[in-house]
């Protein structure tokens, strides 16, 4: 990846992480862990990959992103705000009465949100519907869906996986955020979804693995995805839950908990230090 672009993306991803912490801290609840683990891929998609139009968010030919793991809305909201869909200050209204920023994403309420999600396993079906829709009328937009590794325990994911391969939806890329943790603990202990790559391959997908926090790897994975014809693409990203905030990293307990004032200060200071280093 171009070094300047990489630097810009790292800076933006750091700001996106700050927006996540800001939102969850002000809401006093929410899901920081899984939001932080997808912050880099969201940043790459919205700042370097997808055709999106903050001034015309409903533009028909835009690329779509369905956050199938809808509980990580703080991550999506933060990247949308930083991309210019709405004011970054609004992130502080997360989960409040009167806010557009509902606990889980809502279509037609938040500019840039392409599908209502939150109930796991459903977003991937809607993403398949959008991709099929494009195929039926020869539209050129691409559809991205982000799933959790715990989420793929939902049976509907595999109904959708079968459907996508059967219909040769090569305009669809599903990213599985393999941070290894879900609410009750390690995914491998709760009800193992492994081997994830083999499962998607068996369902007829082209599978790519990538390091979720390395922009060179992210770019390479999405470039490879673009070359695939006749198959949907699954990118299995190895990620760290809570990435970027030391005390949240690799901890299932930060799946759905907000930092207190002290923890908030520590988290923001860490992120500010990272930002200063990047900008320095």
């Amino acid at each position, binding site marked *: 990846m171009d070094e300047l672009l990489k630097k810009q993306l790292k800076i933006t991803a750091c700001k996106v992480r700050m927006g996540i912490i800001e939102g969850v801290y002000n809401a006093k609840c929410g899901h920081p862990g899984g939001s932080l683990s997808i912050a880099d891929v969201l940043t790459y998609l919205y700042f370097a990959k997808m055709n999106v139009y903050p001034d015309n968010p409903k533009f028909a030919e835009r690329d*779509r992103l369905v956050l199938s793991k809808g509980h990580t809305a703080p991550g999506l909201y933060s990247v949308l705000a930083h991309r210019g869909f709405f004011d970054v200050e609004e992130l502080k209204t997360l989960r409040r009465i009167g806010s557009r920023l509902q606990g889980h994403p809502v279509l037609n309420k938040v500019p840039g949100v392409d*599908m209502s999600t939150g*109930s796991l396993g459903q977003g991937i079906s809607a*993403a398949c*519907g959008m*991709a099929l*829709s494009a195929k039926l009328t020869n539209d050129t937009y691409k559809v991205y869906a982000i799933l959790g590794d715990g989420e793929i325990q939902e049976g509907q994911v595999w109904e*959708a996986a079968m459907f996508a391969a059967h219909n040769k939806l090569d305009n669809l890329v599903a990213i599985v955020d393999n941070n290894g943790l879900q609410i009750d603990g390690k995914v491998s202990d709760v009800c193992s979804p492994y081997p994830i790559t083999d499962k998607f391959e068996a369902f007829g997908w082209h599978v790519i693995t990538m390091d979720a926090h390395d922009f060179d790897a992210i770019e390479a994975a999405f470039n490879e995805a673009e070359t695939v014809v006749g198959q949907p693409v699954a990118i299995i990203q190895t990620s760290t839950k809570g990435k970027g905030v030391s005390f949240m990293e690799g901890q299932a307990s930060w799946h759905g908990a907000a930092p207190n004032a002290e923890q908030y200060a520590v988290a923001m200071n860490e992120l500010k230090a990272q930002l200063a280093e990047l900008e320095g």
Partner: protein
Amino acid sequence: MADMIKKATRESYGEALAELGAKYENLYVLDADLAAATKTGVFKKAFPDRHIDCGIAEANMMGIAAGMAATGKIPFASSFAMFAAGRAFEIVRNSIGYPHLNVKIGATHAGISVGEDGASHQCNEDIALMRTIPGMTIINPADDVEARAAVEAAILHDGPCYLRFGRLATPVFNDKETYKFELGKGVQLANGDDVTIVATGLLVYEAIEAAKTLKEEGISARVINIHTIKPLDDEIIIKAAKETGVIVTAEEHSVIGGLGSAVCDVVSANCPCKVVKIGVNDVFGHSGPAVELLKEFGLCAENIVKTVKEALNK
């Protein structure tokens, strides 16, 4: 009326889709391996490129429909009522209802008249389930003419619709030349002032027949066809409550949460009166010929007559 033409509304559904496919290029039909039974196969024959078989995966089919609607298509997601409203309920609620997407759910084989397949396939709960979803329009047509009109009305309505169709061939009593479908409007089919029979689906014809019998016995029964269960035509119900004082509801659905419950909701808040509900009385059905089952479960003109007389203490 023995010579009246009979037709199952599922046939009407498939034929209407095939007819309207040319007029509405944005119309797509999804099915879950039941195209021969839901009759969407008729559409598939006419428009093979616009018919998508999702396989036996109703939950995913509803999500596919949601995604298609989110990108501007008008999808009709078709399956048996049991699976469309039952199995896929939460997907219909969260992926279609919550974002208020323009998905049409074509649910066939509703009610006990599925017949021989038995209780696992006899869905008497779908209206109740769909009524709880904010913004969901529910249409339960009474015959072939109404069913065809309902399909086009659903296309013209922007928002999620649940259309309920039957497997059993039932009398075609509406005149296709003069019939006009108005979404959300009840239809008064017979005037009367002693009692009002409010019916939906295949019970509408039975209600008409019951009113004729009652007339012969000196009871003047008003008959109202409620094809749109949600939004309900409150006005026609309140008027009937005020003018006739007693209401008997009739539906091929559980007495819990269906048309009868909807009528009670309106009447109790606006003009309390006696309401007696005819429906499936909180029991599962069983296998058997549809017509015999309808009689056994009291979903017939004879039982409407009997219930009306009891309600009037006559």
